């Protein structure tokens, strides 16, 4: 394999943008490239690139909007069944130790208590975990965190559940809790799993960093860190289980129904088709509902009692045991030439995995792959280590580690701009990813790279909103600053297969049943799938009914995470629709006596592109289908074109496409009370094709506010492994009055990957605001903050230290 960028001679100052932008530089590595799709035929290219859409790009109403607005949506917590039990979990109160003695007899004897279960009641596998199955469904002996599940209770009322939980007697044999990464790494620290506390380590390198640093005119070296965060989805984890025709059926608030199905079935040692997981309306997830929450506990209680059972976590319980954002520390050394050309980056990062792996392996891999930021860096050396501790379990949280490392790669860009006296946008444009850029993994970017456009659009909007004269603090005791942050984000799982599927049937009346596995957690995938399906078939949005995330009827959708569903389930939907359309095309072609490839399907009509008068309506076509006895059925799947990453240097193709974004934050700091107030945010996102621009904007707006929370408000407070701020009253997320004026802007870069060129925006929406806030604070008060969040107390401390 040859990668010219990894050649030290090429990595010095001689490389300029013109060289690396030309495709001559290198070829992407070709190992283990995923085979082409097995779908019989792909939609034609001409149609894919045709931006004159009839349904796509339109702000159709979200499929779930009406029911939600009138308050009719049934969440799992609203569900009731006759003869229903309530379930609860007895959890550990210590972070580390062993169960010395457990007595459930008093609890089990309470009238109205249906059962009290321990690990002994699990007929199958007592292990769960999305990547590494290291978490017991019920603890057998060893306790690894506060909140570990030990027993389950089912009872006739919620009050009886409480009573039974209080009647369970336990004695612990407590051992030292490992609460810091430093302690975890020590040889003599207690081991949380197996022989070492090192959960994973990674090394990505290319070129020769040491040699390159010698060529640099400027070197910036800084340490950044990001604390633990909680998702605070508004609806706590909840579900209901019952047997329906002998099938264990679980309605649950989840992002991952197909994964849930397997975990429940394996626990009960029954086949996967004996479990049906149906996603209940889900009130937010942000990654916190990817892990198993109530699913297995519900399944086990239903299995043992045979009765319908409901579990709704209390807010405190939900916050205590759902996954958290990995706390990370990142040390960056960045070197550049006087003209701003970046030559080298050396990065070391560590992360706190907490008690169980959860999505940890995905977070470390993605963080490493994205660590350079959206910039061409020819010489890179990135090392990362994540450690198990007895802290709460870290996992997936909107961005899988990229929000954390964005603090660092953007902090470095801003520091570099200051050091060089360069405009921070010019510096970024100089080093920006473009079509043809070779990534540190050796992948060449071949299409859909709209980063520079996001920078330019952000600058234009900024100049329109602010100029040197009008840009003033609103009061004498305030200081105002603008900050910038950027990001790139690979769509889908990192260097791993992650397919999704779809089924389509066009019915005789031209309405369509579309079945997708994809969980809609409020972001609007159901709407997007319907738009894609309607566009491909040439029908209207209203013609499409979507059944989703229902494992007995919908195909695998994979997780609603990694900003992947529009791209992957969307492409699967398009492929399925296209398969059904092929039959329709054949029939229409025979009927109209026009070659199939000349036919246009649009807005319930079919016509010859060369002779628009040769046409038929969709109802006519469906009548013809019926007459000759054909069905318009389609099956589609899609697996992004990626490769596994080399264990040696992490080279390979981690993602098929990347989204890009730039945010500009305008904020004020009150230098007397140390309050910060974000006033305006411009957030520009390259999403490929915006399937539904209003929903993209909504994602951006929500992401901006969450980004402000990340940067300036949110922080999990831990004492000895226990989260002290479990509630909204003390885990502070921004509320409506804290939201700034937001300018969401969309850039549509061109590419053939994805449905009609669409990428993803779910996680990107959050990211660039975070580093932009940090930069804005620095520009307002002249103090660099590398540790986020930047709280009022930090500003007070630092400003008074300076004086």
């Amino acid at each position, binding site marked *: 394999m040859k990668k010219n960028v990894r050649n030290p001679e090429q990595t010095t100052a001689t490389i300029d943008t013109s060289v690396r932008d030309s495709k001559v530089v290198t070829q992407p590595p070709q190992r283990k490239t995923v085979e082409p799709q097995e779908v019989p035929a792909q939609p034609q290219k001409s149609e894919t690139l045709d931006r004159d859409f009839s349904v796509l790009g339109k702000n159709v109403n979200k499929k779930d909007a009406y029911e939600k607005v009138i308050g009719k949506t049934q969440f799992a917590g609203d569900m009731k069944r006759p003869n229903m039990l309530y379930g609860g979990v007895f959890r550990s109160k210590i972070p580390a130790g062993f169960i010395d003695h457990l007595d459930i007899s008093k609890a089990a004897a309470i009238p109205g208590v249906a059962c009290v279960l321990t690990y002994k009641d699990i007929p199958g596998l007592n292990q769960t975990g999305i990547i590494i199955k290291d978490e017991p469904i019920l603890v057998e002996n060893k306790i690894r965190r506060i909140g570990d599940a030990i027993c389950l209770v089912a009872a006739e009322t919620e009050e009886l559940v409480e009573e039974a939980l209080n009647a369970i007697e336990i004695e612990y044999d407590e051992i030292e809790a490992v609460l810091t990464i430093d302690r975890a790494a020590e040889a003599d620290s207690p081991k949380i799993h197996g022989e070492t506390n090192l959960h994973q380590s990674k090394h990505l390198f290319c070129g020769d960093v040491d040699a390159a640093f010698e060529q640099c005119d400027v070197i910036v070296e800084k340490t950044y860190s990001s604390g633990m965060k909680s998702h605070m989805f508004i609806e706590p984890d909840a579900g209901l289980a019952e047997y329906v025709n002998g099938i264990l059926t679980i309605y649950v608030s989840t992002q991952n129904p197909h994964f849930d199905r397997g975990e429940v079935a394996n626990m009960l040692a029954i086949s996967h088709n004996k479990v049906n997981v149906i996603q209940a309306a889900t009130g937010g997830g942000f990654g916190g509902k990817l892990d198993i929450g109530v699913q297995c506990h519900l399944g086990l209680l239903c299995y043992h009692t045979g009765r319908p059972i409901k579990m709704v976590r209390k807010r405190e319980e939900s916050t205590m045991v759902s996954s958290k954002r990995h706390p990370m520390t990142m040390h960056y050394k960045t070197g550049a030439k006087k003209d701003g050309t970046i030559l080298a980056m050396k990065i070391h990062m560590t992360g706190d995995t907490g008690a169980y792996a959860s999505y940890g392996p995905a977070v470390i891999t993605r963080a490493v792959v994205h660590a350079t930021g959206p910039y061409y860096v020819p010489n890179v050396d990135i090392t990362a280590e994540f450690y198990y501790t007895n802290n709460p379990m870290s996992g997936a949280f909107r961005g899988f580690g990229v929000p954390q490392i964005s603090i660092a790669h953007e902090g470095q860009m801003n520091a570099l701009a200051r050091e060089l006296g360069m405009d921070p946008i010019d510096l970024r444009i100089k080093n920006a990813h473009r079509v043809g850029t070779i990534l540190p993994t050796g992948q060449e970017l071949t299409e859909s790279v709209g980063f520079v456009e996001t920078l330019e659009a952000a600058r234009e909007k900024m100049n329109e909103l602010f100029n040197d004269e009008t840009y003033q603090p609103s009061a004498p005791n305030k200081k105002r600053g603008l900050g910038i942050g950027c990001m790139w984000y690979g769509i889908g799982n990192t260097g791993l297969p992650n397919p999704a599927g779809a089924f389509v049937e066009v019915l005789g009346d031209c309405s369509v049943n579309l079945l997708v596995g994809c969980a809609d957690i409020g972001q609007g995938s159901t709407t997007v799938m319907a738009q894609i399906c309607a566009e491909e078939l040439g029908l209207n949005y209203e013609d499409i009914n979507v059944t989703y995330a229902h494992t007995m009827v919908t195909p695998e959708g994979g997780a609603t995470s990694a900003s992947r569903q529009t791209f992957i389930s969307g492409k699967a939907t398009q492929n399925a629709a296209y398969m059904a359309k092929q039959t329709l095309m054949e029939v229409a072609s025979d009927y109209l006596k026009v070659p199939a490839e000349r036919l246009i399907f649009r807005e319930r009509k079919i016509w010859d592109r060369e002779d628009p008068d040769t046409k038929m309506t969709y109802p006519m076509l469906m009548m013809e289908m019926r007459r000759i006895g054909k069905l318009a059925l389609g099956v589609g799947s899609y697996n992004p074109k990626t490769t596994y990453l080399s264990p040696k240097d992490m080279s390979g193709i981690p993602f098929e496409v990347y989204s890009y974004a730039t945010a500009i934050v305008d904020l004020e700091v009150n*230098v007397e*009370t140390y309050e910060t107030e974000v006033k305006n945010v411009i957030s520009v996102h390259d999403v490929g094709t915006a399937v539904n621009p209003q929903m993209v904007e909504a994602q951006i707006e929500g992401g901006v506010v969450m980004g402000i929370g990340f940067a300036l408000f949110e922080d999990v407070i831990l004492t000895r492994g226990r989260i002290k701020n479990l509630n909204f*009253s003390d885990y*502070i997320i921004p*509320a409506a009055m*804290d939201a700034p004026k937001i300018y969401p802007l969309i850039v549509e870069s061109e590419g053939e990957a994805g449905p009609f060129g669409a990428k993803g925006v779910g996680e990107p929406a959050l990211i660039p605001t975070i580093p932009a806030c940090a930069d804005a604070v620095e520009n307002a008060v002249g103090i660099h903050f590398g540790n986020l969040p930047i709280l009022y107390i930090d500003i007070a401390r630092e400003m008074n230290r300076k004086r």
Partner: protein
Amino acid sequence: MRAFNFFSPETVEEALDLLSQHQDSIAVIAGGTDLIIDLNEGGKKPDYVLDISQLKELDYISESDGMLHIGANTTFATLEKNELISEYYPAIAKMADYMGSPQIRELGTVGGNVVSASVAGDSPTVFLAYDATVVLQSKRGTREMSIEEFNVNRGKFRCQIEDDELLIEVKIPQANSNFATAYRKFGKRKSLAIVVLATAMRIERDRDNRIKDARVTLGAVSLHPMRSPKIEKALIGKKLDMEELEPVLQLYTEEIDAAIASRPSVVYKREGIRGLAKGCMMDVLEQYGLV
């Protein structure tokens, strides 16, 4: 939440009967924005809950006998919209404006706030600056005490209320043109934020625009809001002019240092208090038309 019996009396008299009957096993509920949390968390496990929210007798804002009377059932939303308050009692208006969120202001009552007497409560800090008196009533009779005396823990209560008593009203000396009042607080966000730090002041001026009398209170620095005689003394005699007032700000920092020197939050509070206090001073000057 444990099951309980629920009473919803229509008169204060009825309510007082029930209270005296079930003294040690009854909880009063007004808006419920504090009590429900207590019930859910198991902090209180009453056999009876007495709903006083229907007692219209306790919902009033009026001036008489040189006093402003605020009935215990007055919600923060009512306070916020009341013209007497917004015109003449700016610190109360400000407090009502920034309390909780629209939903909480709609339910939460002055009585509930005063009886909860939370460290993070808004009204105790403000009422202390206004030199408020609370009026309590039981079958045994009626008694009055200053809010300062009232805000002393008694058993399970964070105030002096007895098991069989209802808070009837809070009253404060009526405003006149020589009074100016201000309240500033800091929370971790703009709404729905627990008070991290607060301060209130009531200034009385003389004819030469000098401070004749001052009451200054600090909130969220000790178990209950406290007055600062030291700051008050330093303010008295000062000209109502920012330049002259500004040196007093340092005393606020000293007061915080003295109160909470060893707590981690002191890092912020000792600095932030000057910002809040200066805000109060500016509000006062503005009310007097001196800026």
